């Protein structure tokens, strides 16, 4: 049986308009063999969770450079939980101080990629750590 390709939602929550990184990562993940859906900018946590369900994704990658990550990441996770899909892996990146990276890990965010991370690292991480949902 053919192996189902992993489906990843790359999302930009909140008002932050910096999408250079998110678009590069979406493209790199696509080149890396994954099915990628990019939400575009200015998504609310509800919209992201809705898209995750509609698109039946295995993981959601969030990009936040506005400093609002400690509000937005938890809200996305809550919205996913409310829809009964807390098994969707949440990871992300952006401008996130070390202290907050730890807090996000504690909240269940699987990995946080900060400035300097390579697309190679991210693709490899997804390959090694994200599994198709049952």
């Amino acid at each position, binding site marked *: 049986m053919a192996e189902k390709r992993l489906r990843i939602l790359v999302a930009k929550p*909140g*008002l932050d*308009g910096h999408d*250079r990184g998110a678009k590069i990562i979406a493209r790199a993940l696509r080149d890396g063999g994954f099915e990628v859906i*990019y939400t575009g*900018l200015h998504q609310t946590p509800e919209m992201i969770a809705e898209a995750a369900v509609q698109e039946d994704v295995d993981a959601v990658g969030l990009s936040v450079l506005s400093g609002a990550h400690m509000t937005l990441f938890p809200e996305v996770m809550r919205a996913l939980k409310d829809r009964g899909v807390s098994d969707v892996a949440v990871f992300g990146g952006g401008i996130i*101080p070390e202290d907050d990276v730890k807090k996000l890990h504690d909240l269940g965010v699987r990995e946080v990629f900060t400035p*300097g991370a390579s*697309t190679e690292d991210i693709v490899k991480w997804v390959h090694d750590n994200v599994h198709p949902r049952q």
Partner: protein
Amino acid sequence: MKTKQDWLATTYKKAEERPGRFSTVSDLDIAPLYTPDDVKSDYAADVGYPGEYPYTRGVYGSMYRGRLWTMRQFAGFGLPEDTNRRFHFLLAQGQDGLSTAFDMPVLMGYDADHERAKGEVGREGVSVTSIHDMMRLFDRIPLDKVSTSMTVNCSASILLAMYLVVAERQGIPWSSVGGTIQNDMLKEYIAQKEWICPPRPALRVVTDMIEFCARKVPRWHAVSISGYHIREAGSTAVQELAFTIADGICYVEDAVKRGLEVDQFAQRLSFFWNLHNDFLEEVAKLRAARRMWARIMKERFGAKNPRSMILRTHAQTAGASLTAQQPINNVVRVTIQALAGVLGGVQSLHTNSMDETLALPTEQAVMVALRTQQIIAEESGVTNTIDPLGGSYAIEALTDRMEREALEYIKRIDDMGGMIKAIETGYPQREIAEAAFHYQRQLERDEKIVVGVNKYSAPEELPIETLKIDPALEELQVQRVRKMKRERNSAAVRESLARVAEACRSGENLMDPICEAVRREATIGEVCDVFRTEFGVYTDPGWL
């Protein structure tokens, strides 16, 4: 006399050459040497004298010998009183103009108490919702003595109105108010991505502001035509040059279509360039830009007043070039970039702080950034003479080349039907995304080096203190906004917003109705809601 070809084939060939390509950060191939033969331009027609057409060597006759560039550090965070304090600090440290950073809710047209503002209040800039915030923000700052730049775009009309009402309340006539509002919507769709409504109505609002300022606020720059963000989004230097100038062309065309004479408004169009890593490329870019704009204004638009032809610019060192790793290295990067700006003849300069990949700058970090400019101005000697790199074979050859390549892009955009059409089909957006992806690939293959990241990384990073925004201030601001909304005359506000809506529909200039709304304590979000209703809401096409 030996030719360059001969020299390349003999002396150079015998000498060592390091492996790899020699290219700018934007991937322009650079020759081992430039000689007089590489410079095709004519000194009289193409280079000329400072303060004279085509202004390649500088927009003013005496440039920095007459007046140094304005040192204008971008600042804004937290509550208006926090930023007011930072403003006073910076002015006391020798800065000569203000530059305001607003938070994401302001930039996207939402009040601090809006659902979509949650977690974002005061984080990327200062929180402002009503005229009261604006009064606090500029407390004890005389608006006839200090010029202010405001970085805001889709809600710019309201912020300008608020600034003008603050001036009113300080007893200052609008004719004495000087400054700039970014208000460059075209580059929002291309790069910065702060919008409310689609491009065409957004352009209408920009033109309203150009027209309004030409008549009522003559010292004000109604648009800062920006390349900075285009570059930050990942474009090459040539793309930055081309798309920015193409945006400028679109604004001039729209104002002329409105019935304005070019010489009525063009002298208050200003520009805003990025100052990136590649020193030679940046200096050449700034010189090419001046020459291009002068020619376009004269030949394409028939400007008669020399003041309509001169490209006056603010510039900022490249945020995207800074590293989170070994942040003190950023001081060095910023110095080189700032120097390129000065040698490129900018009128106003912001130097980034070393900690800006991590957070908004601390007082200490921004002081170093300001001192960088002051040391260049007072100690480096480059301000003793105008355009000292002019005549360098490399610089003149690069200037010519960048002009040539940028003009090709502009022609392509013209052939598409202009910048609005180009934006609607995603042309500049896709070019930029492609360039960004290309650069990232080069970085990951070590074809381009970033010290501390893919070369010379440190096993252990020394932590530095960064600015923290107290999350409690969001609640404070929300409460203030709610209280203000309860206590003001709601009927008067509603009436004023209805007037704005009417003006949206009739095509009448929006600025007077918006000024009146602001006087009556209408908020940014409320006026923007009128735009949302009347002009529609634009959503990100999400092209990769």
